[in-house]
């Protein structure tokens, strides 16, 4: 089966680059707006607090539970919601307790007595100090991986490629965070893992397009960068779509079947896969053009490199023959 034909006419991506730039820019601005005005909903991993999952036999008496807990001074502001089904509830509260002996789950057991047959399935409590530490570490992880990737691409390609891919990366992460803010998804450690995966994934896509552009610079006759980019992007379109599809499939199955605990994680990935694919085609490549990447310069540099290598080889050969 072939969706994209071999003799697929080259698509004029770069001619429409401005339109996509406007789209991207507005998405990024909207995301920033969401992040500022709505804000990320930090979960307990980063903000501290407690989440208790309770499973009832039969339907959970959510109203009764709310009434009981809201009367208690520690749980006045507790947020009680269904969790995946009508018999599961999640109790979220800012309250934490340092006491090892008697903790929130014990207290919860006393409070919920008489609400029916239930089982406390999980308790996650993160003290404020730990939350801060996790947040700092998470931020560090993000910054460090961006620096690492930037360094690697500069080394393998050229600084403009690195800059373009990092801008695309920031574009993807911002929009993903915007989506998290829009849907007020709890931002916990797994979400951070998902965002870092998107970093890697989106880059993966961008690198493959760039690799084709790098190849195109050598093989395509035109010195017009936008022609080279158009042709390269068209040639990789099939691959980009297919890989995105397979990844999208599995992330979708994770979202649908992976259980309530992986919902936020897989949602983040879903958004990231879509945005990451889009950005590798419509964001990263035009930026390369706008950064005034010059093909002739690049070719000259490559030729220079080749010459130096040849020279070195000649020297080595001479050395081995004993003439030097």
């Amino acid at each position: 089966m072939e969706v994209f034909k071999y003799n697929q006419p080259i698509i004029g991506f770069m001619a429409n680059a401005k339109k996509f730039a406007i789209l991207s820019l507005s998405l990024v601005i909207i995301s920033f707006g969401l992040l500022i005005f709505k804000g990320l909903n930090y979960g307990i991993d980063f903000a501290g607090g407690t989440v208790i999952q309770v499973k009832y036999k039969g339907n959970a008496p959510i109203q009764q539970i709310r009434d009981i807990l809201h009367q208690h001074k520690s749980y006045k502001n507790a947020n009680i919601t269904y969790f995946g089904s009508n018999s599961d509830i999640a109790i979220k509260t800012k309250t934490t307790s340092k006491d090892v002996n008697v903790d929130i789950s014990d207290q919860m057991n006393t409070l919920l007595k008489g609400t029916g047959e239930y089982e406390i399935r999980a308790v996650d409590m993160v003290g404020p100090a730990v939350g801060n530490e996790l947040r700092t570490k998470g931020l560090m992880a993000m910054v460090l991986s961006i620096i690492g990737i930037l360094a690697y691409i500069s080394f393998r390609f050229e600084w403009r490629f690195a800059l373009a891919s990092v801008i695309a990366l920031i574009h993807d992460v911002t929009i993903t965070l915007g989506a998290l803010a829009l849907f007020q998804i709890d931002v916990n450690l797994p979400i951070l893992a998902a965002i870092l995966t998107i970093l890697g994934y989106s880059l993966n896509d961008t690198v493959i397009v760039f690799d084709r552009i790098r190849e195109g610079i050598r093989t395509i006759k035109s010195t017009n960068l936008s022609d080279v980019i158009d042709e390269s992007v068209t040639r990789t379109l099939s691959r980009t779509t297919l890989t995105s599809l397979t990844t999208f499939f599995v992330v979708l199955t994770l979202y649908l079947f992976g259980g309530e605990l992986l919902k936020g994680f897989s949602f983040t990935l879903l958004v990231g896969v879509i945005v990451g694919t889009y950005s590798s085609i419509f964001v990263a490549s035009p930026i390369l053009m706008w950064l005034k990447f010059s093909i002739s310069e690049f070719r000259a540099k490559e030729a220079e490199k080749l010459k130096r290598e040849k020279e070195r080889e000649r020297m080595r050969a001479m050395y081995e023959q004993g003439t030097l």
Partner: protein
Amino acid sequence: MNKLNYRVVIFLFAFLFGIIFSIPSLMQSSEGKKITLGLDLQGGLHMLLSVKSEVAVESKVKSIGTTIKYKLDDEDIIFDDLKIEDKSIKFELLDKDDLPKLMKILKDDFKDINIKQEGLKFTLTLNNKLIEETKKNAIKQAVDTIRNRLNMFGLAEPTVAKQGVDKILVEVPGIKTQADEQRIRELIAKAAHLQMMAVDEDRDARVSTMSEAEAKQYGDIILTDVSNPKKKYLLRSIPILDGSMLVDAKVGYDRQTNQPLINFKLNGRGAKIFGDFSGKNVGKRMAIVLDNKVYSAPVIRERIGGGSGQISGNFTPQEAHDIAIALRSGALLAPVQVEEKRSVGPSLGADSIRASMIALIVGFLSVVVFMFIYYGMAGVIADIALIANLFLILAIMSLFEATLTLPGMAGIVLTVGMAVDANVIINERVRELLHAGNSITKSIEQGYNNAFTAIWDANITTLIAAVVLFAYGTGPIKGFSLTISIGILASMLTAILGTHGIYQWILPKIDKNRLDFWFGIKGAK
């Protein structure tokens, strides 16, 4: 078919290796190295504790106070009541002639102590070195003590480890009920601080109306009875001896009431102090205090030699058992607090395993079928590599006895989607070359060549993100980055080297007139 080439041989070996070493994990056999399930999948308790090491410093001061008092008594040095205030030991010497003797004792037996002298008044404090040492020791001791307790409790493979400067990580898998969890938490947190204290018989009659401050003035302390909070005792605040001189503690039963109680035994030094004290204080009461609660205060009838004693209270057999464990493993020098707690019930863990397995199977099948439909036999070859990849991930994780967490499962599912990427890139290249009219051999060789740099660069960038995640992540997140990293590395072997080898091996079978079947393309020249 061609002769076996080195690529396909390596691939087959890797495949076989993957199958063999993932068997113990897949079969959950007891033999061989296998993957352990994380607490989030098998259920259990994860706690990050912090140690209040300041308290250890305070009790260090107290215990130095106790020893000084004992030494001075022993040497017949007369001094006015020894008091502990604000982390310092204060006392006044009554006889000036004892000064050289006192100085000698302080110099010889108590190093790392600052001595402030005003006339015959002494104030002793710990120096910074000793304070630091005491704090460090308290943390180390807490780790050892908690580990001992959990081991003695007989649980399967608890983990107790120091984390960072002053935190302790405790992981206890396989807890079945909440009551069990609470019992374990109590065992961990129990100070198990045993003290024998003299009752201040001169003033005890007034204890019910006495304030804490007044008691302090006399060098006393007010403690309550364990079973009756209204009943108070006035005790000398410097204990006669404490649990550090304990060598054994066992559950026993009272002969008359058949109530569980705890028999303990003191070491030689403790037995001597106990004997001396009881000999000198016949007719007075001595309180047995555990974690600042008075369990009993019997009247001393005669000198008690041999150094054994009993703690009685209204224990259930379970409580007595846990207290005995706590006493045997030693007191916590400083109390611990919970900074982070994650507890997962066994049923939730089982649900998570089921859900992520379904996601893995559905995701895997849809990718496998998709690859076959789109690429024909080339897709099947990619699928074989994908299966080998899955086995390799399991095998490598088994060999390292790595922990599989829920995010780790998600990582494996994600790898399924991303590992075929390499084959998609390769197949697209091969198709391009076939369309351009190249021979099958040339298309395959050239296709692999062209695709290599892209796959390499893309994988390395993902790997960079995964490694950073591993270095900075905690617990489950580490599991995620681990499976992703192993998946990427394994895919280089299976998806690039392995499939290449298979093509070279079966090359003569590939019919150039059936490119539709082999590569899923029509109309190539």
